[in-house]
């Protein structure tokens, strides 16, 4: 698959526009998904994703093939999306990353796991929650959305996250903790588990 991408990149570099179009079609949904996760707005995500491919095309000559084409275009898309919401980020600096005792919730941990489980009859709840997930993500502050998307969709490691976001590895872990905690709280609300301590809804 990646060999195909590399071959298409070579053809696009040679001026074959159809080769580049094929690359766009192949990766467009994933780039859009990353952008949407970060910027929330569908039209802005569409614009960011298109711009990501335009930037990629402008720098095709710089592509060395050390990382995959997919990684490269996703990185550019995420970077543009983060830029697009920079203002929002500045307004949410009051969200601290440290994990304090008060951040450790009691009583609700494990509720989602026991509800979702591996029981095929509970797949309906899994589907329902999956449908609500993007909505739940949109309710998080920008920095929590961003780190979750980079981690879960782009698949970055702690080290890559630290480098990309310009923060320490410890901050990466604590920020991810807060992001997941907020996401899980919203999902528990959706599923009707608010305040429940491990019981069924």
């Amino acid at each position, binding site marked *: 698959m990646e060999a195909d991408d590399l071959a298409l990149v070579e053809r696009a570099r040679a001026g074959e*526009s159809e080769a*580049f*179009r094929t690359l*766009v*079609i192949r990766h*467009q*949904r*994933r780039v*859009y*998904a*990353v952008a*949407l*996760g970060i910027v929330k707005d*569908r039209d802005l995500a*569409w614009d960011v*994703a*298109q*711009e990501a*491919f*335009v930037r990629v*095309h*402008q720098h095709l000559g710089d592509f060395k093939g050390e990382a995959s084409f997919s990684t490269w275009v996703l990185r550019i898309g995420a970077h543009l999306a983060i830029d697009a919401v920079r203002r929002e980020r500045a307004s949410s600096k009051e969200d601290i990353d440290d*994990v*304090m*005792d008060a*951040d*450790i919730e*009691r009583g609700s*941990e*494990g*509720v*989602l*796991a*026991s509800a*979702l*489980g591996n029981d095929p009859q509970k797949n309906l709840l*899994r589907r329902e*929650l*999956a*449908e609500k*997930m*993007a909505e739940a*993500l949109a309710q998080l502050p920008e920095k929590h959305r961003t780190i*979750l*998307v980079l981690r*879960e*969709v782009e698949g970055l*490691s*702690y*080290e890559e996250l630290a480098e990309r976001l310009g923060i320490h590895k*410890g901050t990466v*872990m*604590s920020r*991810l*903790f807060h992001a*997941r905690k907020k*996401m*899980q709280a919203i*999902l528990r609300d959706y599923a009707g588990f608010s305040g429940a301590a*491990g019981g069924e809804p």
Partner: protein
Amino acid sequence: MNDCARHAPLIGARPGELSDEEARRLAEHLAACEACQARLADEEALSGMLSQALLDEANHRDFATFADGVMQRIGGGERRAGLLTRLGLWSRHHRAAAAFSALAPALAAVALVVYLGRAAAPEPMLVEVSAEGRGTILLETSEGPVVLLGDLDQGS
């Protein structure tokens, strides 16, 4: 800070992301803490769901025009860049013509002012002088008087 506040952020790390010391401490804590075992279970239960949810969102959207939009943006950029590049090269090789081109708008403006000035000028004054049945017409123009000779009776 209690043990959970120290160890909960380590939950969700992938293999190799924690130092040996961190991994050992987490394993020891998990073995003794049911709450953090439950947190780990939540994390595992939701694993992959966010990525799938966002891709589902993308899959629900019609992407028929997406690639065309990208190619138009690229094409527009290339056309603009190409035109600017050609103009730059042309002006370097034709400095006199380029200088004239730069002055062209100013020259056009001057020409327009002169034209409008002339158009707004008063109608030429016609003065008729008669001599022995022949009519002489003196036409006053902005370049000076023009004398036209002719037979005033002709055609009357």
